[in-house]
């Protein structure tokens, strides 16, 4: 039985407090008038070139507001103000979604282990269940941010702006799907389904410990298989709704898979890190190097899978070179050069070279170091998906972004480790527990 140590609890509170202060400062210093916005940009002018150049890059950005980025100064200044007002919101949203997606990725991994009746992993089920407990608070926070967008408290989603839709034929055509009410109903259905499966599966998993037959185990298997069908559809739609729709003119048919790869690899990485942390505390004594080895193999494999999808999406658009599609990458390569290519190095080259050797996958600190880079890389991946549409070339990794990450990291640690402390770390009566204990490579 794990007890949530006071040191870790205090650390998580400090992270949350520092994060909350930084987020608050980000919102307070947000410019409220066009003049303020111009001043902020002028004070950073060495970084972004002169005003004229900024206006020119804007004309190449074809997102929802191109219609009025004709170079009119007043329109452009107003656009700039919106981008700067979006910055703290976007930072909050990216971090909130990133940590939520870790829990959701772990939930999918867990359901796959259950549905496949995997023999190696039951020793890690309690770790996974602990991580998925974050899906409830994390999901609610993401939902609140989305509801705030629908309530026009921010401009993350340009299609929610009635004035923009009025001038935009394409958005009018999509209004049957992309409208505030339906958007929130869908979000509620997705979150409701995921949270329901998590609750049911956790209950059955705990009940199996005390049972004298395998009915709970079999029921859990059925729920997991059913959940995976729901998840496959809902995760894909979630990625269109919550991420792809920030660029409402642009679409990619494999986007759902691409986001899935990101959440899957981040989730598996966090499972490995939490397991190694608990092992370092002398818990989970039956988990051996072969379990870590398998998790590291997944980290390696899914990193390659992510790259495959990233490249499949990029290459087709690059090759076809159709203006309305290629603008997505033009913006990213012009304004986000370092995070865009840096992310590929972190998410592909780094795990490829570091985790290729079989022996390295068994070295715990090595897996943790590779995991830190993978997590940072996938944060950047989400950053690159959201920011270009919401803040354009006004991006930076500053106070708002870092403090948002700190806040959600603190909350994540607090929720996950509190949940880990509520049940024994080793399932007692899982029929595969013996196989899992003897698992060796």
């Amino acid at each position, binding site marked *: 039985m794990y007890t949530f140590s006071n040191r870790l609890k205090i650390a998580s509170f400090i992270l949350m407090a520092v994060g909350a202060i930084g987020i608050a400062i980000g919102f307070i210093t947000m410019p409220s008038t066009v003049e303020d916005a111009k001043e902020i940009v002028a004070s950073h002018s060495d970084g972004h070139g002169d005003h004229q150049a900024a206006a020119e890059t804007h004309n190449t950005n074809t997102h929802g507001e191109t219609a009025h980025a004709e170079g009119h100064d007043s329109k452009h200044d107003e656009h700039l103000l919106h981008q700067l007002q979006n910055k703290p919101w976007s930072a909050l949203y990216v971090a909130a979604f990133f940590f939520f997606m870790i829990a959701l990725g772990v939930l999918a991994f867990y359901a796959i282990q259950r549905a496949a009746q995997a023999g190696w992993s039951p020793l890690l089920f309690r770790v996974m269940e602990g991580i998925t407990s974050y899906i409830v608070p994390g999901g609610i926070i993401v939902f609140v941010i989305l509801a705030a967008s629908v309530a026009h408290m921010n401009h993350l989603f340009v299609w929610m702006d009635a004035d923009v839709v009025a001038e935009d034929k394409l958005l009018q055509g999509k209004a049957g799907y992309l409208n505030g009410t339906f958007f929130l109903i869908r979000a509620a259905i997705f979150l409701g389904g995921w949270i329901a499966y998590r609750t049911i599966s956790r209950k059955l998993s705990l009940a199996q410990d005390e049972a004298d037959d395998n009915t709970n185990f079999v029921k859990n298997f059925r729920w997991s298989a059913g959940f995976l069908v729901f998840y496959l559809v809902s995760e894909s739609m979630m990625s269109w709704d919550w991420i792809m729709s920030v660029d409402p003119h642009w679409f990619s048919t494999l986007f759902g898979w691409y986001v899935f790869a990101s959440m899957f690899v981040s989730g598996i990485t966090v499972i490995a890190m939490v397991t190694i942390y608990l092992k370092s505390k002398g818990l989970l004594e039956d988990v051996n190097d072969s379990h870590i080895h398998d998790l590291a193999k997944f980290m390696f494999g899914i990193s390659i899978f992510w790259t495959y999808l990233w*490249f499949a999406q*990029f290459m087709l658009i*690059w*090759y076809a070179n159709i203006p309305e599609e290629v603008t997505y990458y033009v913006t990213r390569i012009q304004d986000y050069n370092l995070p865009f290519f840096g992310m590929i190095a972190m998410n592909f080259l780094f795990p490829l070279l570091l985790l290729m*050797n*079989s022996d390295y996958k068994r070295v715990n600190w090595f897996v943790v170091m590779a995991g830190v880079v993978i997590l940072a890389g996938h944060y950047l991946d989400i950053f690159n998906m959201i920011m270009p549409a919401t803040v354009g070339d006004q991006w930076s990794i500053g106070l708002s972004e870092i403090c948002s990450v700190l806040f959600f990291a603190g909350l994540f640690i607090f929720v996950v480790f509190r949940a880990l402390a509520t049940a024994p770390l080793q399932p007692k009566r899982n029929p595969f527990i013996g196989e899992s204990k003897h698992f*060796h490579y």
Partner: protein
Amino acid sequence: MASKVIHAFYNDDDILMLAVKKVKAAKHHIEEVYCPFPVHGLDKAMGLAPTKIAITAFIYGCIGITIATLMMNYIMIEDWPQDIGGKPSFSYLENMPAFVPIMFELTVFFAAHLMVITFYMRSKLWPFKQAENPDVRTTDDLFLMEIEIHDNEEELKSLLADTGAVEINISEK
């Protein structure tokens, strides 16, 4: 030199694994184990040196990606410059997205084929080669452990009988 060997037969891979561990614990050198299918962890139990084929695979992959790059650079850029996807840059680097699938495929192709050839050469296998297994039943349902005899025939026999061997034969090699 004619030396005598002892052949112990087993009918289950789990029993074989335990037997290998017992024989190793009794400090006898196991000459070879013949199996109808690969037994997981047997190499470690027998104390065989780890395979170096992973290193060769990496090297072959590097050769593959190099050949792919040089080949396409010659064909598509130097010898007959092509306008790829309406982007007439005539530079390998700028057109690289178009070349990545082939670079990947040839990396895999070289690694896979050269690894198989290396494996055959290293295990001295070639077409029409006579089988080396001492008993045909090892291709069906029996596992065979071969140990060389150094004036300890009776000791080995009783040890192997204890490990659950279903049949023990002595033969000249």
